[in-house]
């Protein structure tokens, strides 16, 4: 019986794309993330929900080691992607971030042309051997991000001149261009209007086929619409994690229930 459970767990371990084990994050003296264990499934959308300051963004940023750029931040525990510990000293965080892309809260296209925005990652990683290959990467990334039809005739115009929704999809296309395996999205729609949000959500749903997506969101409706699994964070603790349907219809923890029914947060 016990053996059975172990085997089951082992199967689950090998299946999950990202597995976090007893992750602690400290900002100086503040203990921001406490004992987080989570398994994230490949080719699916997992959403992190929770009230402001609960640590969901902080945890998201540990997955591609973006927290390394903050001096006072310290991470303990282990996070494995495809079984490899990303906090191992042998791992190059710069290489890791090519594999684990990120889309930010506010669209942040570089003040360059649309083409150069997409070509930025492939260029620094040397993904294209010549101009034709680079052109291919740019057009296929824009196609995957559903932006190609809108911008194909103005690739040399600045990315900063587009609408907010287009800018965010450009940022998603920019992340796709380096062919990551995982895409982390930190409240990607919070700066967008409802129509642009709908487009980005649609895009996230399509991207699920090829990428493992983790999305932090403030909107429970958004989590319900786009994700297959949902994790609820509160005060730096992962309170509950399960299939999105279970979390929203049958939460096991009282705090989760209070949050999704709008009693706090």
């Amino acid at each position, binding site marked *: 019986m016990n053996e059975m459970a172990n085997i089951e767990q082992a199967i689950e371990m090998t299946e999950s794309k990202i597995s976090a084990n007893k992750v602690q994050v400290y900002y100086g003296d503040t203990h921001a993330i406490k004992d987080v264990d989570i398994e994230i499934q490949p080719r699916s959308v997992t959403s992190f929900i929770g009230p402001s300051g609960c640590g969901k963004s902080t945890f998201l940023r540990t997955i591609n080691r*973006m927290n390394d*750029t903050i001096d006072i931040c310290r991470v303990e525990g282990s996070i494995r992607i495809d079984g490899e510990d990303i906090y191992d000293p042998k791992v190059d965080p710069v290489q890791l971030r090519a594999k684990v892309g*990120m*889309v*930010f809260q506010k669209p942040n296209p570089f003040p360059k042309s649309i083409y150069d925005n997409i070509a930025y990652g492939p260029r620094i990683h040397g993904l294209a051997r010549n101009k034709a290959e680079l052109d291919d990467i740019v057009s296929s990334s824009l196609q995957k991000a559903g932006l190609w039809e809108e911008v194909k005739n103005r690739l040399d115009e600045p990315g900063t001149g587009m609408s907010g929704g287009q800018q965010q999809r450009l940022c998603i296309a920019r992340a796709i261009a380096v062919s990551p395996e995982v895409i982390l999205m930190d409240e990607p729609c919070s700066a967008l209007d409802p129509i642009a949000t709908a487009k980005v959500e649609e895009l996230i749903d399509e991207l699920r086929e090829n990428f493992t997506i983790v999305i932090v969101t403030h909107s429970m409706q958004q989590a319900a619409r786009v994700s297959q699994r949902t994790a609820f964070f509160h005060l730096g603790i992962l309170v509950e994690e399960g299939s999105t349907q279970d979390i929203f219809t049958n939460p096991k923890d009282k705090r989760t229930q209070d949050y999704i029914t709008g009693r706090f947060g």
Partner: protein
Amino acid sequence: MSLFWLILIVLAIAVVGYVLGRARAMSSAGGERSALHSLPSYYGANVAMKAAVPAFLFLIVWLLAQPFYVNSEISAMIPDSAISEGSSRGLVLAEVRRAARGLDNAVASDAITEDFARNARADFNDITARLKEAGQIVTSDITQPVLRAAQRYRVLTAAGNLYMTIAVILVAIVGALWALRETNAQFRARNTVEKGVQAILIAAASIAILTTIGIVLSLVFNTIEFFKLYPAADFFFGVTWSPSFSGRGGSSELGIIPLLWGTFYISFVALAVAVPVGLFAAIYLSEYAGPRVRAVAKPLLEILAGIPTIVYGLFALLTVGPLLLSAFGDNGFGIMKAGTAVMTAGLVMGIMLIPFVSSLSDDIINAVPQAMRDGSYGLGATKSETVKKVILPAALPGIVGAILLAASRAIGETMIVVLGAGAAARLSLNPFEAMTTVTAKIVSQLTGDADFASPVALVAFALGMTLFVVTLGLNIVALYIVRKYREQYD
């Protein structure tokens, strides 16, 4: 009565007005603070303001207008025959003022009596000798018309000062009374004081602007004066600079090209030093340095900006010059003859400009949103890739602006050039030769005892004007670029 006492009296009236105004407001409200529209101090301030501000304005206007009036009066007294060959009315008027001041001082030191000063005649009493005995500086013999004018000048000035004192005090008192009359519980003193404060602030801003206009106008008029004496084409396109101070500068060759060449050459060397070093220092400080290093390094770097330029000049003359000479002089490469050279001044000026470039660039790099860095790091870029491909392109317009501002400082720099680059106006490509700049030549043109009406002195204004136009142009371009850059992220 001196101006100092007059100002004190007006201030005293204002203080008394403050106390009275406050008291009157309180009494009109029956001692009840809450019945007043404004706080009691506002009523006092209203009275003080209405006493002092119009009085001081009146005083300033009077002080500006009186010399014009007096000058036109005495100018009319001087016959054309009294103006000698090669002189001008302006010079004679200056002589009149000098004589009048001499008389004043002589009377003050009891060398002559007031009566004598008023009635002396240059043709009977040897007034020049008397003044010299009294220890006054008299440049030439005082002629009868000049003395008559000087005496009239003294009378007019004395009368003017008396009237001015009376009028200013009257204005102050009338202002205070007016303000006291309107003081009652309903009067909106707070709003009035607010308007007064606004007016004072506007006045301060206008003074800055008007002064600039005044400086530019004085440059323009003197430049026009110069071009009457010396052809503009020779000035702008002449390749020889050899002012001749003898014979009223008649045989001078005053071509600006060698000076401009020296200016730009030295500035170029300075920027070639300051821009890379300053920019890289700024990148290190803003992107790589930890908070502790930054807290120490940034103030240290900015100390460089606080060193007076004359100290840099000494550094150029005593340290950098000999050092370069030992390397490139006769014992080294043999292309440098003396310590003073374009390279010496340029290197030291570059060091001076490092903190200027670095602190401006640092601000501009810090203004690039963190989101840009995150975006780049999130795609797997390293720090230097991020700096090179995202931060510098985004900050480039601002950095160009900073460089142009540094360039306009380099062009205007004087002391380092005087001490480090020598005084020879020369058109040469060798950076180890002595050259000079526009600013250094302005100094040498004006520090001699040249006659101010001669082209060798007036050329300083034309040089200054040219320099002003060049740096103004650079500043405008720089500000335009910086502003355009700012709009990008707002």
